[in-house]
């Protein structure tokens, strides 16, 4: 039961710490948070922006949650996001022409494969050579980002974009329509919600989910009982990378429509916080992505009214992660002052 309190206490701790910073910046925390909440959910448009912001976070949160369950520390969701977006750009800008009901699943599947394959490399290095995947997946992000940089400035540069470094937009049938017209809220949200339910079902009711959990908790006992530990880890990697790839396709085809360098302002990394705040629960990810989205969107609005940098959202997010880790520690150990 103590475990269920962890996300809430962590979120609260983060907000309290931010209050201190807000006071230091010369504003009232109450006013700041009121503006933040208003900016995030205070109008129909605000809510649509928050939900739009939450969509990629649900995907990357699921990616982290699934991987972490198997103790596969996938820090590469950022790169896998772009892998998915690149794949969708490559296949979605005219190479293939399918009707929308085929095109969208096709691009999502392709993006997932790209994301999964990207994570496969570091995972094989882990299973065969015990190379730490935290290092390999993290550094791979930078390589992917540089690759995208080269693409949008080079071979994929859209000549019609008036000099901006971006790729050609995807064809119409690839676009995810808007759920609410005159907002930016697209059908990616619905796909994200369904994906979350599917992942929950997988983890809870299927053999794959059982094996992932067993291997994550105790690989030694799992191996002894006959569970193919390495195969399970690789399977998990493909799934996790695929989910992050989904995030890339969703942002590309739903929000922007074309590949740019700033398609992801760190969604991959925020996904880790989302997963930890949700205690790695696939359905909890929906709630924690909303929390992080509210912080981001609300902070933008708040910083415009008060003279506080909107980096406060990043600070709050980061402190949440630290607070989760400390909370988790305190549920297992007690400090003795002796």
């Amino acid at each position: 039961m103590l475990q269920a309190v962890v996300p809430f206490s962590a979120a609260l701790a983060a907000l309290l710490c931010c209050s201190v910073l807000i006071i230091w910046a010369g504003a009232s925390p109450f006013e700041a948070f009121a503006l933040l909440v208003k900016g995030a959910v205070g109008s129909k448009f605000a809510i649509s922006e928050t939900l739009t912001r939450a969509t990629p976070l649900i995907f990357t949160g699921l990616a982290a949650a699934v991987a972490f369950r198997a103790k596969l520390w996938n820090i590469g969701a950022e790169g896998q996001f772009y892998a998915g977006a690149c794949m969708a750009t490559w296949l979605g800008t005219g190479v293939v022409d399918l009707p929308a009901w085929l095109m969208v699943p096709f691009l999502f599947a392709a993006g997932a494969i790209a994301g999964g394959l990207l994570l496969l490399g570091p995972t094989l290095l882990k299973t065969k050579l015990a190379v730490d995947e935290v290092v390999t997946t993290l550094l791979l992000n930078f390589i992917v980002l540089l690759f995208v940089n080269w693409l949008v400035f080079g071979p994929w540069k859209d000549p019609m974009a008036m000099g901006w470094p971006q790729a050609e937009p995807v064809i119409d049938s690839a676009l995810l329509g808007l759920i609410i017209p005159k907002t930016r809220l697209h059908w990616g949200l619905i796909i994200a919600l369904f994906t979350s339910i599917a992942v929950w079902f997988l983890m809870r009711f299927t053999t794959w989910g059982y094996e992932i959990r067993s291997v994550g908790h105790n690989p030694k006992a799992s191996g002894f009982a006959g569970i193919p530990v390495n195969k399970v880890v690789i399977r998990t990697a493909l799934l996790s990378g695929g989910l992050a790839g989904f995030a890339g396709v969703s942002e590309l085809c739903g929000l922007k429509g074309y590949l740019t360098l700033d398609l992801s302002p760190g969604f991959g990394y925020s996904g880790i916080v989302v997963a930890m705040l949700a205690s790695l629960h696939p359905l909890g990810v929906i709630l924690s992505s909303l929390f992080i989205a509210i912080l981001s969107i609300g902070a933008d609005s708040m910083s415009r009214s008060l003279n506080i940098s909107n980096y406060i959202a990043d600070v709050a997010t980061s402190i949440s992660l630290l607070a989760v880790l400390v909370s988790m520690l305190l549920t297992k150990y007690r400090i003795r002052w002796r």
Partner: protein
Amino acid sequence: MNNEPLLSLKGITKTFGSLVANDGIDLDLYKGEILALLGENGAGKTTLMNILFGHYVADKGVVEINGHALLPGSPKEALKEGLGMVHQHFTLADNMTVLDNIMLGTESLLSLSRKNTGAIEKIKNLTKQYEIDVNPHSLVKNLSVGQRQRVEILKALYRDVRILILDEPTAVLTPQESDHLFATLRLLVDEGLAIIFITHKLREVMAASDRCLVLRHGKNIYESKTSETSIDKLAQEMVGGELPRVERIPAVPGEVMLSLEEIGVTDSSGYHLLENISLTVNSREIVGIAGVSGNGQSQLADLISGLLKPSSGTFTLHGKQISNPTPLFMIKQGVGRIPEDRTSTGIVGDMSVLENMALESYWKDEFNRYGLIDFKALLEHTESLSKQFDVRSGGPNASARTMSGGNIQKLILARVLSENPSVIIANQPTWGLDVGATAFVHRQLIEASRNGAGVVLISEDLDELFGVVDTIQVMYQGTLSKPIDPAKTTASELGLAMSGHRDIEHSSLLREAVA
């Protein structure tokens, strides 16, 4: 012996939540005596010693040394008052010398030079005084287990210990080394020390102690001079009733179930983990593997469990040769495996009792359809097995790590035996279990063998082997002896074999020659 006790615990009570670990315990220790502290797992022995040593603070009660109260909760104070403890798991640095290990922690961080000569003198005098055969300049990693234990004792002596506590000291010793230890302890008490040793081995209590104290459920319920009591009485008091008797009726062995012929296993650096192992297990037979742990037993168990591949030799199961074993393959071939370390290899502590019960069968058709797990069927399965094997837990959805060691072992047994295996490899299955649970495990293994299974029982406990098996083979440094008939040998002969004297037929002659 004085009238005033050297150490006195009065009314020690300690509760952890709803668990009363120690309940009003009184204990007196006099100068010059060896007191044996007995009790099953969970009886409260370790908690009591931890309170004495300052790791825990008692809720009620007081500890008195030499008549004055000991400051609770401070290991430093305990050390100052002359308390010393030798733990079951040694705390020695392998890469350092005996001298360095003994002095570790005794010198100030601020001193510029190391006062070595004085220390060496003191240690040399101690080794002479107590006839401890260790060279202060040897590296610990080159010492035998028995010698390492004596280094641990030296550590305490160097710190001028007056009261020495030993926790399960003979768990890792051969019978000969145990005798040596008790001789050393006798020398110590003759010089005026007082010793408490914690154990559950009744034979040793009778052989080595002056007085004994039995704890049960946190209370001290029986105290006696060792000369005035018996093994049966102690066992009864430990369990609190009649000792469960295990009947072993020798059976006629059937066909060969498993056969290892001249098996060798080498690791990646060419080191021989197992050498020239030959072992045959017949149906209805229980083969015992004796030996001090660390001589290849884990590798033998891993081999039969499917975790290790043989580098040479022939491995035959049900008449078919096996060259590429995996754990799943062995499970499907009907090999039931009971691992040595139940909490780290036998169960996934963070998963539920139900999920653990299903660990080796979740993929079977009756529990699995198109990749979906039938949790309802698993629930019925778990409940019926829990009843059949008396597995007590907080329910099928309780986390497995909340179960006691005995119940975890029963779960593993249930999981293994419910599949009617034809071969069972049980590696130290009763380690750390109390008398009741141990008897249960023995009964289950004997019944399984009666039903046709061939059982390999690896155990350090010679009493267990003598009571349960049909034939014994001794494991020493990766090699296995020929089968020995338990009726034709003794514990001390096996002890010699366990420490490397291979020729058992000649050991009695050796004894006569040396005597």
